[in-house]
Every structure is written in C-alpha cells, then in structure tokens.
C-alpha cells in the first residue's frame, strides 16, 4: 500500500548538515497497522511527514497504491493528500470551530457540497462516540475527546491511509488505551492502513501488526511486532525491550537473597540453593511455567522479582526465582527450561 524507497532527508542547521533520514525503505501493506518506533530524534516525525510530503525528501520515492507522490505538482499532491488522513500529538483542532466544524473542515476543503457535509459529519462523530458533543468547542472537551475529534476529522474524506504522529503521547495511559482500541476497531472495520509513529512500546505492542525500529535516521529492524520485540536484534530494540521488561536485582535485594540462601543451606545441607534469572522471549513456551516446574520436579520455588509484559498474547520479560532441591533435580529442571527456550542464568 505504502512503498517507501531509499528515502533520505537532511536539514541544514547552524551546526552543519544533519541527516534526519538515511536510505529508508519500507513496504507497508494494505490494511495493516504499521508501527514506526524509535527514541526521540530518531527521525520518526520527519519520516511520517515525508509520507504525505509535508516534508520534501531529498531523494527517494514515496508511492501510495499505484500513485507515486514524489514528483507530483502541488495541486495534484493536494488531491492525493485527501486520501491520507493524519492525526497529531497535540490534536491541532481549530479553537474557534466546534467539534462539528472541525470535522467538517476537510470536507469543505475538498469542496464537498454543503448538503452532503452534515450527514457525513454526523456519521463520523457517531463512529468516534462524540455525537453528543458536536456543539462543544475544543477547549470544552478532554484530551481523549479531542483526539477522537482528530480521528473523525482524519477520516472525513474516507482516506486509504491514516498517519498517526505520536497521537497518544499527550494522553494518560487509560485514554491511550481507549484511543488505540478505537483505531484498531476502525482499522478492522474499514480496512484502512494505519501508520503509527510513536516512542511508546506499549502502543506498538498493543495494536501494531508490524513494526520498524528507527535509530539515527535508519530503519534498523523491521518485522512482525512479536518477532521484533521477542528476539530483538539491534541494540536500540534491545534497549527498548529491556527498558520495558527486563529488570535487574538491586544490590540490596541480591544481598538479602544471598543471606536467605545461606540460612537455608545451614538448615538443610542436603539441599542446593540456586538463584536463577529466566528470560522469556517470544520463542519461549511459558505455559504453566511455575506450577509445571513445581509439579514435575521435587523442588521449592520462591519468586524473587518478575517483570513480564504481554506482547500480543505472548509473555516477554524476566523472572528471578530462588529454587531449592537436590543438585540433580535442579540440574534437570534447568535443562527442562532450556528445552522450553527459556534462557536461564545462575546469578548466585
């Protein structure tokens, strides 16, 4: 649906040339929700603004469907932009237009006859659940409601593509969740292709089918969300995943656990004490992990610390467990974990 080929963009700054994007190539398929994630300054916003050519790339091509956008004249480009809806971090609603007026704006711009505007706007406001607020001004509604207006406005001209530029970054977690659910719902119902720019991993995790990781203007990793986050290959991706899921034991915790293990060894010299770090990835078989272990092997399991995130139904994260049992039993248990693709490391 969206074909980005070898896209590059540089800016001249007082400190010299700055390469915002270097050789980006992405194919975004029709009907998918595609995430573009990266730390701030990675070039995400530049990339999304290049897709509808609000920013002119230095080189490379953008094609949407059969239409190449790069190289179009201004008037033709304006027509093509009507097929691409866009929502923004700060909503960008006109303060002096009501909710109704804001949604009507793109229709007025496209020259839709007045008689057709009202039913269309009312339908859109119903779709985003704001029919009852149609006469309010943006200053009179909440952030989540403003973004719903933004979404209705972006969908006004029945676009094939919806670009979302950090659309949930200014919202609280609960509102973020409801906006993402709405986008997912619209995507499923209409088959619209959605491109989500974000720095929030939870956004990608929640709704993106595929994701591209952007770092310093380059797409360093592209693939199914699950694959990218469960087996991250690039440092930036790994950093993001570990920031969201992994956790290290603090020195104090580690010390306390060591003491407990020492005491346990003194009481039961026949039993071995081990502290394990289990890393769960998308490849791991996490079914009945802890109860399964306890049932299968004659050992005690104490949960020390865990941070596990659900990525589209798959658990990814880190568990610290203290286990005690005979050395042979513990060895067999660790082997069984390895067979289930759970990376297991002895910490103490």
């Amino acid at each position, binding site marked *: 649906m969206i074909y980005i080929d070898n896209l590059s963009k540089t800016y001249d700054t007082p400190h010299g040339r700055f390469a915002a994007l270097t050789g980006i190539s992405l194919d975004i398929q029709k009907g998918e929700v595609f995430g573009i994630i990266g730390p701030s300054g990675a070039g995400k916003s530049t990339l999304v603004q290049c897709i509808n050519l609000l920013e002119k790339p230095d080189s490379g091509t953008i094609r949407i469907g059969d239409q190449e956008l790069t190289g179009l004249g201004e008037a033709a480009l304006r027509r093509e932009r009507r097929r691409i809806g866009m929502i*923004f971090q700060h909503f*960008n609603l006109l*303060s002096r237009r009501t909710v109704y007026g804001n949604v009507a704006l793109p229709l007025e711009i496209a020259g839709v006859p007045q008689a057709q505007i009202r039913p269309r706007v009312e339908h859109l406001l119903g779709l985003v659940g704001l029919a009852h607020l149609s006469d309010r001004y943006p*200053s009179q509604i909440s952030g989540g409601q403003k973004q719903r207006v933004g979404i209705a406005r972006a969908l006004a001209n029945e676009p094939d593509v919806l*670009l979302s530029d950090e659309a949930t970054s200014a919202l609280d977690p609960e509102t973020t969740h409801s906006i993402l659910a709405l986008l997912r719902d619209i995507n499923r119902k209409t088959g619209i292709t959605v491109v989500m720019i974000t720095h929030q991993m939870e956004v990608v995790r929640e709704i993106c089918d595929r994701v591209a990781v952007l770092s310093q203007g380059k797409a360093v990793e592209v693939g199914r969300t699950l694959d990218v986050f469960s087996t991250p290959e690039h440092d930036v991706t790994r950093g993001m995943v570990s920031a969201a899921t992994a956790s290290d034991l603090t020195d104090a915790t580690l010390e306390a656990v060591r003491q407990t293990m020492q005491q346990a060894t003194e009481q039961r010299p026949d039993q071995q004490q081990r502290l394990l770090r289990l890393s769960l990835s998308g490849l791991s078989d996490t079914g009945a992990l802890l109860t399964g272990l306890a049932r299968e092997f004659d050992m005690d399991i104490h949960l020390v610390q865990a941070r596990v995130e659900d990525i589209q139904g798959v658990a990814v994260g880190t568990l610290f467990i203290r286990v005690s049992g005979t050395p042979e039993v513990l060895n067999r248990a660790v082997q069984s974990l390895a067979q289930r693709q759970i990376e297991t490391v002895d910490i103490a």
Partner: protein
Amino acid sequence: MNSVTEFFSPLLHFFDRISPQMLELLRTSFMETLLMVGISAAVAVLVGIPLGVALVVTHRGALLECLSLNRVLGLVVNATRSVPFVILMVAIIPFTRWVAGTSIGTTAAIVPLAVAAIPFMARIAENAMREVDRGLITAARAMGASPLQIIVKVILPEALPGLVAATIVTVVSLIGYSAMAGAIGGGGLGDLGIRYGYQRFLPEVMLLVVLVLILLVQAVQSLGDWLVRRMSHR
C-alpha cells in the same frame, strides 16, 4: 450635606458658561471625528489586514515563503510608521489632492489618517496571525488545503479575536491622530479643543472635549473587549 453641595458647586456650574452654539459646534466636531476615524479605520482594516497576511505568509518557513517580498513590504511598512503624523500629513498633500480632490477639510484629512493607519494595522495584524498555532497549518496542509484555503479557513478565523483587538488599537490611535487633522482644516474634536479651549482661553470647552474623547475611547475599547471575549474559545 449643604457643605458638600457648596464644595462641588463651582464644578457643577463650570459648564454653565457653554452656550448652545458651542454645544452645536461640539456635536459637529464629534461627527467629524467619527467620520475621519470611521472611514480611515475601515480603509486600514481593508488594506492593512491583507498586507498583514502578506507579511505573515511570506515570512521564513511560512506558507508562501518569499523573503525578498517580505523584506520590501517590511521596509515600506516601517518607513511609513517612522514618519511623524504631522509631517506625513503635509508630505503627502499631492497624493491627498489626487485622491480626495482637495487638500483641506475633513475629507482631505481622511487620506493621511488612512495612510498612517494601514502599516500600523498591518503590523499588529501580522503579530495576531503569527500567534496561530503552526500545528493547525500543518493539519490543514495534511488535509490537502491550498494556501488560499489555509488563509481563509484557518489563519484568518483563528486569528479573528486578535484581529479585532488589533482593529481596536488602531481605532484608538486614529482618534488620537485625528486631533492633528486641524492642521489641514480637518476639524474634529481635537481641533475644537485647540482652537476654542486653548487659543480662545475657554478651559470649559477644552475639558468638555477631553471628557468626550475619554468616553469615546472607553466605549470603543469596551466594545472591542466584549467582542474579543465573545469570539475566542481558548
């Protein structure tokens, strides 16, 4: 109670010396001021706002960036604003004569007032329009709006409260400038104050003129504030 009345009685009787003829003169002068300010303000709005739009959209990084045009317009605006009004008035007499057919009288005074008010209006209108959130312009561009549509549907409506405030500032300044129109026989309240109040030693006339001007400016300002409050939805 009596002492209070006695204390204020000189003040209360201050205006007793004003004759009905003088009141008639005051009325005429008031109408002349309204005429001069009204028409020149209307011209200032009609020419100044488009000029302000031109200044905004040709700015660096703006919708229709054109730095050379921006610089030329900025220079003309600044130059006109630099000339003291009294000098401007006499300096453009040939132009005034060409436009109004005469170089003296109320009609003739409207020309220099408008010429002075246009760049003034343009600058404050430019500032009001620059306050419009750039994100709104980005959003409109993303919708496929043309530059003209962005000006008409986004910049001007969003800046409207600011433009009304700018118009009020211009009108108030014009009321002040119009006092100098007497120099070319333009009449008006300021001229009345100078000729009767100052030159003929009639302090009651001077005071009356000043009071009327204060009330006029106050009324204009209140109307403007009320309009701005009604219009902005921030």
